[in-house]
């Protein structure tokens, strides 16, 4: 089932549409880049002059989804219905479900919230994912192994650029995620954060016996893209304590793969029923959902296929719950959840578009210099003797004479007066940069005015109200 070429895609579309429902999680606040998201909700942040939410929508549309459930906030919903570009670009039917911002719902809560709408297995995508992954790789794992969970991971990117407002190098002591996969690199056996592993890694010998060669990888980025069995949603409905998919549900599923109780079926059920009534209840919930149809079982018995070699025991060692992961070896995968990732994504993404770097409605004088690695949004005005290199300029921005912009992100409606020098900075919506200002590695918040002749280096300039908030 490996469809790589364009011609096959239509078939893939059809299949996807029937067997999977797409859920897009777009209600996150972007708490790790508050400076950016204070005025603009994360899904609407411009990346390569498109709102961030466009990227996952496009990803789903490319593989043929015709409908997607978007879980988001009121604010984003309004923008979704007004944004012209989104309207013209995205042909899928968007089933927008609003949740209240204040309630602080986790991703699992959100799934519980929409459980009525879920009829089949689901594909959950986060709104901050920008990737060119061949999505069928993930889904094929899900299909081929009748998996409970399959997910996407990629190599972590090293952000080399200087990030505004960040003092010194990023501290190396970041807590790493430890991901254990089997020898094929597909089966997900173990997942934990370094913070929870002070006592060291512990594996049961029985797990090692089933998977005698385990690769432990660190330095992987979880793309927050999950295929989940419908039964998992039912499980969530019964377990209200689980609030987050990544934080709780996925580790739970990974652990449960080797739970004896789940695999030995009814034998132990009676004896342990009394003591672990509650636990048993939960487990049964998962089991009933992952109960394979009799035909499938029969097919596996009759087949000589096996998922492992070495011993002669049955495929999957009789386990009913299986988690898989597709790890991208190459290609692009960003999660725009930090400022550094945001800057990096803006730098990389424009190269992927086929449309002209300068929007036809933009006014660019002939005597200015716009590098081919830059993009200029609609209704922009670029004046004489201005040079723009490796930068993105958003909609309706005005850039006056003799301005030099390198390695920067200019959002929408920004005005930059004459003679400015802007390098490695992010200028948010509707900001005004005064004449002759020199900005290096700065972040200028929405609607801020920078006084003329200012010289700023490595600063975060935001409104006073915003500072109070933080």
């Amino acid at each position: 089932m490996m469809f790589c070429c364009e011609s096959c895609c239509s078939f893939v579309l059809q299949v996807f549409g029937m067997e999977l429902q797409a859920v897009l999680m777009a209600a996150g606040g972007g708490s790790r880049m508050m400076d950016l998201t204070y005025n603009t909700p994360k899904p609407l942040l411009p990346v390569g002059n498109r709102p961030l939410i466009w990227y996952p929508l496009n990803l789903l549309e490319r593989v043929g989804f015709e409908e997607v459930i978007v879980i988001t906030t009121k604010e984003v919903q309004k923008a979704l219905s007004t944004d012209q570009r989104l309207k013209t670009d995205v042909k899928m039917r968007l089933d927008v479900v609003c949740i209240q911002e204040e309630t602080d719902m986790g991703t699992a809560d959100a799934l519980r919230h929409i459980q009525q709408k879920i009829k089949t297995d689901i594909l959950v995508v986060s709104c901050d994912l920008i990737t060119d992954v061949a999505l069928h790789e993930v889904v094929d794992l899900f299909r081929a192994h009748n998996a409970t969970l399959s997910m996407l991971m990629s190599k972590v990117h090293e952000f080399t650029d200087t990030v505004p407002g960040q003092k010194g190098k990023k501290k190396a002591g970041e807590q790493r995620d430890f991901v254990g996969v089997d020898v094929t690199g597909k089966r997900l056996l173990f997942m934990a954060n370094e913070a929870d592993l002070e006592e060291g890694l512990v594996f049961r010998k029985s797990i090692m016996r089933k998977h005698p060669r385990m690769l432990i990888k660190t330095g992987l980025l979880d793309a927050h893209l999950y295929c989940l069995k419908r039964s998992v949603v039912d499980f969530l409905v019964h377990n209200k304590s689980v609030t987050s998919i990544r934080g709780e549900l996925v580790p739970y599923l990974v652990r449960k793969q080797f739970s004896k109780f789940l695999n030995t079926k009814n034998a132990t059920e009676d004896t342990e029923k009394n003591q672990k009534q509650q636990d048993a209840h939960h487990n049964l919930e998962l089991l009933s959902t992952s109960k394979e149809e009799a035909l499938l079982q029969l097919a596996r018995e009759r087949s000589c296929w096996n998922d492992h070699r070495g011993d002669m025991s049955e495929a999957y060692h009789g386990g009913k719950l299986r988690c898989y992961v597709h790890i991208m070896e190459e290609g692009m995968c960003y999660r725009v959840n930090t400022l550094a990732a945001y800057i990096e994504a803006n730098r990389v993404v424009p190269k992927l578009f086929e449309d002209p770097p300068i929007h036809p409605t933009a006014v660019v004088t002939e005597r200015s210099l716009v590098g081919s690695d830059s993009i200029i949004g609609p209704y922009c005005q670029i004046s004489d003797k201005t040079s723009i290199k490796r930068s993105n300029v958003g909609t309706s921005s005005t850039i006056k004479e003799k301005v030099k912009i390198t390695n920067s992100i200019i959002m929408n409606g920004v005005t930059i007066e004459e003679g400015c020098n802007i390098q490695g900075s992010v200028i948010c919506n509707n900001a005004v940069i005064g004449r002759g200002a020199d900005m290096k590695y700065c972040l200028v918040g929405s609607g801020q005015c920078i006084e003329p002749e200012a010289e700023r280096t490595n600063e975060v300039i935001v409104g006073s109200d915003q500072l109070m908030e933080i």
Partner: protein
Amino acid sequence: MYVSIFFCSRPLIFCPTLHRSRWRKCAARVFGSREKTRRRPNAAEERNVCHVAAPLTPLSNMAGKAGKPSRPRKADKDEEEQPLQAVLVADSFNRRFFPITKDQPRALLPLANVSMIDYTLEFLTSTGVQETFVFCCWMASKIKEHLQKSKWCRPTSPNVVHVITSDLYRSLGDVLRDVDAKTLVRSDFLLVYGDVVSNIDISQALQEHKQRRSMDKNVSVMTMIFKESPPGHKTRCEDDDIIIAMDGKSKRILHYQRAQALKRLHFPMNIFHSGSDEFEIRFDLLDCHISICSPQVAELFTDNFDYQTKNDFVRGLLVNEEILGNQIHMHVTKDGYGARVSNLLMYDTVSSDTIRRWVYPITPEANFADLEGQSCTHSRHNVYRETGVSLGHGSQMEENVLIGRNTMIGANCTISNTVIGANCVIGDNVTLDRAYIWNRVHIADDVKVKQSVICDNVEVKHGVVLNEQCVLAYNVVVGPDITLPEGTVLSMHHPDEEDDEDDDEFLSDDNDVGYRKDKTKLKVFNPAEVGSEGKGYRWKTSSLEDTEEDELAECIWGEIDFRFSQFLTQSYKISFRNLGKQLTSLLNQFLYHGGKFYKSLLKKWAPVFKNYVKRPQDQLDCLASMEEVFLERETHWAALVKVLMSMYQLEILEEEGIMHWFNQGSTTDKSQQLRRNQGLLKFIQWLQEAEESSEEDE
């Protein structure tokens, strides 16, 4: 592959001295492309041929190797390289093969009718080893005699074998310390046991090892060779289960543990801080017990006189990696064969693998050991027959059968998966399956044998049935008409007799554990055990599959005994500081083994401690070193009280000393925490009360 064997095996029989070079040529023809990569064997071959033409004395042979002999085509940098050396330890330092090894050292036990040490030497020679040091201890003279008669000591041998014997070796550690003392090795060497059967091509691993050493001087000291064999594989036995964590890219070993007795496998976090982002945890490896060592290995054994086994060494090196900066790497082979005959189950497995030709080119019909009259024919279904075999009417050799010369087999026998030695007589209607029958064995009519070992000169009388995993050691007589239950071990040596006769230190490790009770028993053959005409004593049945518990205890006992005696021989010359170090390592061991044996061990050690812990200052020193140990292991703090209590009860420590230590101002937070431990507080309170009450009494 098989075709080529047929092709080349025939001339070998007629021309035994040349067979090696012939075989190589054949092999080179078959594996044309491999010729370049295997330079060393080629060089060996040339020399071999040259020697046949004009035999040299061993001395000049050696000189020729070190200097620049007539090697016309290979005048490149290989010249500067030292000849590859190997250290072969022809002693197992354990008693897994008891009682068989009471009569014959393990290295000389026949495996497919060839002594095990010959397999090892053949392997070493074919990987290009030019000088081998064979270290023997138990029954050294027999090994020496065997080697002197073998082809390895002929002047034409490309591999010069030196036999070094000493009764004082008690472990691998002693051997390597001796290697260091005698400065035998000049550069990287191979370290193997005398019971390793292998056909692995080491050259790639050797090259990697050399490369690592040239890149980082003296950092990587050892490359261990592993064979891939997932759980459930035939060559795996529970005893040898190991779990390894390695760096995915550099193949460096980060963690090495024997997993036999463990339910949960624990990996400390610090091994993942090596800067790599890919690690592998492997449970699918079989330790071939072949390692490429640099000369530092011997030095390290000298520096750390408490290293006894390779396990000690590897673990010690990994734990102290940050301090010493030494690393161990690994090489995993997929298609080679390598296994150590470490117990009888492995003996069974390796034998059958040899017959099924997994160790090609080391096969029975190759007669690689070049023994006279040992040549045999190979026919369909892996049936091998040496000369002079006679087979009665209606007897069938089904598959995987090897029959030694001049053996006579009666009528209507069924034989499968079996090795029979030379000059055996087997009666009519005998069924043999997975039987390993050595030389000069007499088996009468109507005998059934399943998966058993029958040693030299055994007589099995009419109608005997041997169930699985029976062992009949040398000269035993069984029967008639008796059925031996599964796992019976019979020997002419009485299980108790080692108490009386064996003053040999090597054997005396666990005398006093179990046998004392029945010492008074009269030594008569029990007809219920061996049959009415039988001769032999029954041994504990557990010896085939050593239970984990026993093994663990045994290894501890062995070590402690050894250290104990070492201390006594050093006759009080050591300072207490040294003793403290001993105590530390001892304590570490208890904690490591779950503290099961600490009491008995302490009892054993008590006299030594008492001798040294005399002054109050000594007590403080002793307590300080104990504290040091426990501070490193927070999880074992509860055990501190137990150890203190036992030492108090054994009168090694006195209450004043303990109180003084407890009240002593502790410097670090952690040691203060240690003192606040619930159990410890209770103990101190109890001590105080005891003291007060004794004062009141006065």
